[in-house]
């Protein structure tokens, strides 16, 4: 099963996004939130992302990210990860929602979950 890692500058935001997506994706999807800098402030940190990745049950993980440094720190964590991990180029909330639905699908793959997340780029709200 494919897991989701939500990386935000804010631990609260990551948790909130996880909660919203879990409602949509059902209880089956593994969605892990991580956020905050090494001092616990607003930011992202490589060791925190690595730790979150290592702690996940899923062998395949799609990472959802918010702003620039979340991308860079996630990339560094991916380089040392011992599982198959990809970063989705998607808006973090909508992307996580879409990905959670696909991750809960028993036929979901790493690619299909990432694609679902990235489909959220084209969703218009108005």
């Amino acid at each position, binding site marked *: 099963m494919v897991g989701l890692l939500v990386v935000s500058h804010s631990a609260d935001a990551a948790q909130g996004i996880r909660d919203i997506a879990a409602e949509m994706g059902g209880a089956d999807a593994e969605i892990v939130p991580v956020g905050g800098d090494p001092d616990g402030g607003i930011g992202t940190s490589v060791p925190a992302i690595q730790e979150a990745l290592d702690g996940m049950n899923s062998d395949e993980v799609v990472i959802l990210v918010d702003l620039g440094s979340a991308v860079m720190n996630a990339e*560094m964590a991916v380089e040392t990860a011992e599982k198959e991990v990809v970063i989705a180029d998607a808006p973090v909330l909508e992307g996580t929602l879409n990905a959670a639905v696909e991750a809960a699908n028993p036929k979901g793959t790493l690619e299909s979950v990432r694609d679902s997340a990235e489909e959220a780029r084209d969703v218009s709200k108005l």
Partner: protein
Amino acid sequence: MTTSSDAEAAVAAVEHVADRIEAEKSHLTDLDSAIGDADHGANLHRGFQAAVEKVQGLDDPDVQEVVKTVGVTLVSEVGGAAGPLYGGSIMSASTEFADGLDAETSVAFAEAYLEKLQDRGDARVGDKTMVDAVTPAVHTYKKSVEQDDLPPVAALAKAVDAARRGVEFTVPLRASKGRASYLGWRSVGHQDPGATSTLMILEELLAAAEERTDADTEVDAASPTIPDEDPEAAEEAD
């Protein structure tokens, strides 16, 4: 030149940098609060304090190990974009010091650093980032060493001048990378914090190198031969 003297020079340079970042913490944060998220000073300070402790605690390291340790520590401790940009680039370029610290390996390090930095941040000159300071510094250093045949310390001094002009060059630019890019035209007129911290680091590497050159010159004042290795202390992390 012994390996341990290279490593000693590298540790001294890290101490210089950490002291300077500590002194400039508020200045960097002020620059970052104008066009970023106001954490550049605090983040770098946390990173370099940890880096000093780590490298001082190494047991008989070579220069590559010192430089690599700085990179790894910055990645872990800095957070934000500066962690992977500074730390990741230093880490990956540190392999260029496998054969020790000299003019040739320092140029190779500088080029590898720039390449990794551009790759990681996907930034080019004119994007209003640290690349605007690093690029002219690296090109100037390489040219000064390889074409103009300057000793490494003199080449580093030229590189610092080039970085300083690069920092000034960021002021009128509109940011197209990083947090500042969200501000659009409001980023114009502000000096880039990452380019500024890059300049500070280069200035301290130069200061450390000059100190070392002076010390070596004094030691060798009574000797009939002028040591050819003294300027090489300069380049461990430019």
